[in-house]
């Protein structure tokens, strides 16, 4: 049977580990604790045990502990010459990873007329830069080839990229060609220094549980991370770094796809990502027209309007407003959740907001577990009062 080991000499049967098991697999039997079938080695009980009586086996050795791959890479995404903020967020996390591994942090950037020095200010030691007017609108077919070639040539051990519409589309192709693992939408990245492994944590199964994943074989270890999951660090203009300009040899590869046209879309999706304040509604609104009330509150606060998944699924509000794992990840200074119960799939999309206010008539709603401030009450009573008081305040 796979599972944790209980050192019966140390176990005193205190039972503190019993409620710690998320699967309810521990029980006290006399003055000892016993494990039932089904342990996933999650380690929750180990943290609860004050007597160090619970042991987990070490992470399995990788089949391929490669000394030939070194360095942490961030794919720095741009759009029409402007670097995206997710590039800086990844550099901030990449800095930690590289420091831990005592290796260099490199940014890879394909673009045209990019201000690459900002990548150094945000933590890159080295930049592999390829400049071409052809890159303005991100030709994925070319990017796939170019990134594969660069990775084969310079052999980084870790490559991370934004889980954007671009990253989620072309990074898997790179992993497929290289023959290596890729973990989507990571919310946590850490290093197991002993094995030089990237511990990649992501919500899974509809966002109900978290899983930590390793890339057992294959290098580099690759992961995508959604925008706004990590925070970018304060840029240091004095940082020094190396810029390596690479030639883009147009003749050597041809794209099998061709861009015909582009239409910009300034919808709520865009506003949501940049908003300092978001007012968001859930199933508790009951019907589409009740979003009007939240629009009014958003108007008073100068906030963007968000939604949990049920109103979107019901067709009360367009998908572009959806916050959560299958929508947008947001991190505003203030998030006001009205009539949102707080399914985990919603929480993963907003729980890093600085201040969270929850208004819900069910005191047991999970949204209160991530909230900073909570009002237990009918949103149709609370929100109008809130609107009035905020107006008075002005």
């Amino acid at each position, binding site marked *: 049977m796979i599972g944790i080991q209980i050192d019966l000499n140390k176990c005193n049967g205190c039972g503190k580990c019993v409620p710690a098991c998320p699967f309810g697999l521990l029980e006290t039997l006399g003055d000892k604790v016993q494990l039932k079938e*089904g342990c996933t080695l999650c380690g929750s009980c180990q943290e609860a045990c004050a007597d160090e009586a619970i042991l987990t086996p070490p992470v399995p050795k990788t089949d391929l502990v490669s000394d030939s791959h070194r360095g942490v890479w961030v794919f720095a995404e741009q759009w029409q010459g402007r670097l995206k903020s997710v590039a800086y967020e990844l550099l901030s996390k990449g800095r930690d990873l590289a420091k831990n591994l005592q290796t260099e942090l490199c940014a890879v950037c394909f673009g045209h007329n990019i201000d690459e020095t900002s990548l150094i200010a945000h933590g890159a030691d080295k930049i592999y830069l390829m400049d071409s007017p052809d890159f303005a609108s991100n030709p994925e077919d070319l990017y796939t080839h170019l990134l594969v070639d660069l990775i084969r040539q310079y052999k980084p051990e870790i490559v991370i990229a934004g889980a954007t519409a671009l990253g989620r589309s072309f990074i898997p192709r790179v992993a497929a060609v290289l023959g290596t693992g890729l973990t989507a939408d990571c919310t946590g990245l850490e290093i197991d220094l002993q094995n030089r492994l990237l511990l990649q944590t992501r919500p*899974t199964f509809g966002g109900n549980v978290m899983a*930590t994943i390793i890339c057992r074989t294959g290098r580099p270890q690759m992961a995508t991370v959604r925008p706004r999951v990590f925070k970018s660090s304060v840029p240091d203009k004095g940082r020094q770094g190396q810029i390596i300009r690479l030639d883009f040899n147009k003749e050597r590869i041809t794209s099998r796809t061709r*861009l*015909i046209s582009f239409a910009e879309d300034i919808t709520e999706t865009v506003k949501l990502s940049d908003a300092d304040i978001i007012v968001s509604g859930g199933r508790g609104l009951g019907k589409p027209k009740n979003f009007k009330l939240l629009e009014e509150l958003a108007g008073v606060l100068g906030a963007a309007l968000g939604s949990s998944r049920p109103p979107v699924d019901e067709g009360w509000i367009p998908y572009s407003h959806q916050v959560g794992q299958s929508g947008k990840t947001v991190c505003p200074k203030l998030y006001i959740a009205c009539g949102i119960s707080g399914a985990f799939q919603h929480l993963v999309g907003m729980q890093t907001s600085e*201040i969270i206010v929850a208004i819900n008539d069910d005191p047991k709603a999970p949204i209160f577990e*991530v909230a900073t401030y909570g*009002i237990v*009450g009918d949103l149709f009573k*609370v929100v109008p009062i809130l609107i009035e008081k905020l107006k008075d305040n002005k």
Partner: protein
Amino acid sequence: MDVKIDPETNNLMRQGTNNVINPFDTYALEEGVRLKERYGGKVTAVSMGPPQAVDMLRETISLGADEAILLSDSAFAGADTWSTAYTLALAINKLGQYDLVICGRQTVDGDTGQVGPELAEMLKVPLIAYVSQVEEIAGGQIRVKRMIDEGHVVIQASLPAVITVTKEINVPRLPSLRSIVRSKNAVIPVWSLQQLSIDPGRVGLAGSFTQVIKVFYPQRIRQATIFQGDLGNQVDSLVDKLKATGLV
């Protein structure tokens, strides 16, 4: 959704969820059937899963697929996205010539959205992800509307190609009585490791690069201040707190 975790592999067990079509794939199927109605051809539904997934594939026939094939073998279990795409690619190549592979944008359980793009590379054909409209197929080219973060682009690709589709692309139909009858009588071939002549080391858990090492319930970090008293006072307290932050 019920969560089950296989204690042997730490992998999520998906039994019990295999008998329904992944919601995102219903749009892919519908688009395939619509393209067939527009341009002619044949729609084949392919799925990798346990033997009971045959019921789900039967449903794809009632929704307009001409034929369906199940890839099923205990050796395929525990596959990550890479080995899933690899197995699907072998099956598609075995099927012979094709013009277009349509995938849903992601599954509702694993949620990665990686299999479609990985599949395209393994088939060595172009990919367009997040397609919200197929504008035209003509002269060996497909022209589609593709969602990007900044709006949308219209892109053309040479065929054969792989596309992944979003739910904006169509409204899936309901099965007709005739198609239900047809689906009941349909023979759905099951291809195993042997039929696909794959190296067992490249499929399932053995062929996967990634491995789940830990599964846990997320920890909550905050302790909320829940205001007390009548609603007016509660809102006053809230507004005071928010004023103190300078945000309002």
